[in-house]
């Protein structure tokens, strides 16, 4: 009984109530007199902050329990029960989900606070915050759900909210198209997720369809079915977490407001895929083939996205590709069964990516919605706080030693090397160098050198405190979050890994310390090379280059959007128009049209009897009566 806890549900409930209240307030007042923006901002921040407080309570409650039975569960109600399928609307807090909700609510709260400053004066302020709260609530349902079906509720919820928020500036068609793209690509992934879920139920679901029962029954899963389930679920993860081949929506998702990008990239949505794989580690750990595929897809995504990131000129797109790249790392980690390393990278990544996006948001805010890095420069003096915090974020992202990103990324690369995935490790090191290059390319272009657009530069200013304070808090997190999982080489004890261990199924290989040192050295060297090249090329007044050859390919993202358009979208459209032009009218509609014609003719021929005089209808009745009498009088002697 001690594991039953009735207030887990409050964590997603607070933001959802906030969404409801804000939505109603907005709907009721948007036409007439509006409430002041501050009121919306304050109400919007209450939900996430309360959720964070409850998450903290839950976290400490879990810490107080013995390590091998750390979980809290609350079954709110039976959602539906059909045959063997008993789905409970329940919430589960265990080390994995409690860590997730902790940083999701923490970073979510900071982003809400920042948004109150960033979005000030925008139209539909209330709607924005309603969506934002709903987004956070959905993500918390996803994380806290006690079974795959509840997770799917949140899974769809974040998909919906991402659509709503990406196309928030819906007066511009491009933004709406970007929203559509995100939604449709996510649907493809969701199909995989649903199929995977169904297969899982078919295989081992009869003993109960929540994580506890599934984990107990996981060893009944046949390897072939397990592989199918794993790959189908991974298709879902690909859609949500933007992996090859479904990554195309994430860069376009930059159409939304910058804090939304921060929320999507740091706290919610894209990390859902990694979380899901880690959540199902009890299945993935049994199917090494699936793990290898996931790891290779992940690391290739990382490589590809890093390529693209090197040639972008939109500050938000650089960050978007860096996210895709980092997500690739995370999938590589969970693919090689280093789940805790992957989740830890999710954790640190949340801090520095939120920081970088919010910093980029400050820059964009200061330059009045200028996003082209080639029109920035020299902002170091004008925006010192933003510069310093973003620098910390960039160092963390690039994997500078002692910053958080370094430890988490190193953990992944070390795991790859230790489990013998040398290829993945080598690509990972290469990507680490590229990450350092493109990150500092951005930093140098934005903050160093001379201003390229003097007029914009003159108007630039540090944003208000409501925006800089979240930056500073995040910068502290980005700098020191890595300490939580210090490997023993640096005198730590892998605290996060040990914390997560009960929720995951993983084995830590015991290898010599030299391999660890090799991995670290390689990462550091890659980082140093990357940052040096970036410094040489961009630190002092570079001009926008004309891309040619390979670089042009990179800048145009290998024409992947165009390729998808040609290979999938256009044939689909052609087939559709063919069906609507030929098959529907000529093949399927023709028999139906014939029958409607027949009925019409029949009806017209019976029409002559309908003369309209009531007397005549009475005559018909009498005729019927007489016929019946004639027939019945046969029966009477």
């Amino acid at each position: 009984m001690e594991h039953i806890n009735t207030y887990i549900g409050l964590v997603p409930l607070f933001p959802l109530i906030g969404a409801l209240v804000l939505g109603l307030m907005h709907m009721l007042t948007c036409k007439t007199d509006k409430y002041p923006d501050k009121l919306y901002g304050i109400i919007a921040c209450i939900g996430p902050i309360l959720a964070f407080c409850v998450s903290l309570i839950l976290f400490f409650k879990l810490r107080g329990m013995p390590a091998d039975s750390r979980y809290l569960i609350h079954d709110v109600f039976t959602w539906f029960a059909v045959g063997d399928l008993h789905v409970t609307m329940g919430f589960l807090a265990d080390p994995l989900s409690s860590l997730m909700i902790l940083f999701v609510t923490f970073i979510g709260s900071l982003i809400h606070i920042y948004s109150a400053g960033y979005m000030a004066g925008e139209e539909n302020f209330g709607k924005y915050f309603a969506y934002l709260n709903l987004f956070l609530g959905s993500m918390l349902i996803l994380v806290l759900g006690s079974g795959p079906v509840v997770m799917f509720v949140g899974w769809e919820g974040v998909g919906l909210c991402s659509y709503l928020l990406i196309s928030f500036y819906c007066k511009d068609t491009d933004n709406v198209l970007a929203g559509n793209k995100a939604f449709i690509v996510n649907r493809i992934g969701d199909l995989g997720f649903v199929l995977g879920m169904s297969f899982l139920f078919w295989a081992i679901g009869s003993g109960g369809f929540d994580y506890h029962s599934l984990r107990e029954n996981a060893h009944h899963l046949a390897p072939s079915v397990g592989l199918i389930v794993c790959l189908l679920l991974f298709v879902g993860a690909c859609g949500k977490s933007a992996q090859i081949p479904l990554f195309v929506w994430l860069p376009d998702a930059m159409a939304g407001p910058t804090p939304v990008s921060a929320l999507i990239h740091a706290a919610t949505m894209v990390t859902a895929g990694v979380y899901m794989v880690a959540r199902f580690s009890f299945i993935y750990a049994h199917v090494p083939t699936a793990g290898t595929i996931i790891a290779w897809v992940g690391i290739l995504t990382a490589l590809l996205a890093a390529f693209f990131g090197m040639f972008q000129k939109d500050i938000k797109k650089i960050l978007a590709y860096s996210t895709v790249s980092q997500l690739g790392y995370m999938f590589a980690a969970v693919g090689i069964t280093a789940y805790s390393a992957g989740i830890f990278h999710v954790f640190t990544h949340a801090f520095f990516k939120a920081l970088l996006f919010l910093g980029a948001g400050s820059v964009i805010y200061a330059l009045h919605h200028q996003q082209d890095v080639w029109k920035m420069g020299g902002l170091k003096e004008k925006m010192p706080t933003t510069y310093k915090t973003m620098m910390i974020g960039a160092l963390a992202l690039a994997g500078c030693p002692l910053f958080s990103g370094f430890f988490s990324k190193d953990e992944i690369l070390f795991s790859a090397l230790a489990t013998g995935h040398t290829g993945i490790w080598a690509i990972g090191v290469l990507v680490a160098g590229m990450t350092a290059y493109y990150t500092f390319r951005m930093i140098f272009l934005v903050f160093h050198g001379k201003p390229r657009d003097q007029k914009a530069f003159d108007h630039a200013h540090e944003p208000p405190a409501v925006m800089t304070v979240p930056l500073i808090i995040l910068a502290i997190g980005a700098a020191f979050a890595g300490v939580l999982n210090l490997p023993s080489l640096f005198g730590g004890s892998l605290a996060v890994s040990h914390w997560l261990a009960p929720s995951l199924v993983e084995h830590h290989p015991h290898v010599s310390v030299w391999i660890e040192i090799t991995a670290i050295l390689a990462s550091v060297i890659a980082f140093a090379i990357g940052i040096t090249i970036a410094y040489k090329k961009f630190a002092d007044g570079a001009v926008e280059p004309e891309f040619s050859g390979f670089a042009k390919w990179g800048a145009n993202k290998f024409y992947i959007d165009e390729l998808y358009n040609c290979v999938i979208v256009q044939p689909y459209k052609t087939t559709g128009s063919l069906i609507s032009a030929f098959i529907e009218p000529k093949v399927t509609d023709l028999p139906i049209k014939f029958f409607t014609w027949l009925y019409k003719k029949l009806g017209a021929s019976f029409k002559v009897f309908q003369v309209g005089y009531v007397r005549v209808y009475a005559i018909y009745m009498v005729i019927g009566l007489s016929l019946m009498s004639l027939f019945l009088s046969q029966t009477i002697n």
Partner: protein
Amino acid sequence: MKLLVPFLKKTIRKGALDIMVAEWLFTAFSIVAVLGSAGLVLSRHPMNGAMSLIITIISLAGLYALLSAKLIFALQLIVYAGAIMSLMLFIIMFLNIQIKDLPEEKGRFLYLIGGAVLISPFAAFLIKVVKTLPESQTTIIGNGFGGVNEVGLVLFQEWLLPFEIISILLLVALLGAVVLAGKRRLK
């Protein structure tokens, strides 16, 4: 008629009526009733039709008396012949119907013959059914059968609810008639 009714009453009070007399009366009444109804169907002007119907109704009242239904006999005369038919006559006269107002109905007799042909199987069937019933005499029963007291007891004991419902029906009909025929307020 006026002579017939006291005569009938006297004979009923006496408690016995010769069967021959009863048969003779039945034949007379039924011929009058059929003739009256034929007059209703055949006559062109509704006033003539209404008069024929009254004849039928009164002869039916006589038949009710032969069937020992004293209350129904009285009601037939008072309610049907007295109230309903006089209302009808009143309306016919109120509308002041001229012969030119009436529908042409040139093929009326053709219609009637055709209709009769149509209906005859139905009538034949019903008569065939009736023929299967057991035959019985209809001597007058004197022990209060069909009197006001006895029918009233049955009505208010076993048929109370239908009786009340009928009263509501009459009320509704009253309202309906007022609404339909009443003056429309100018819009």
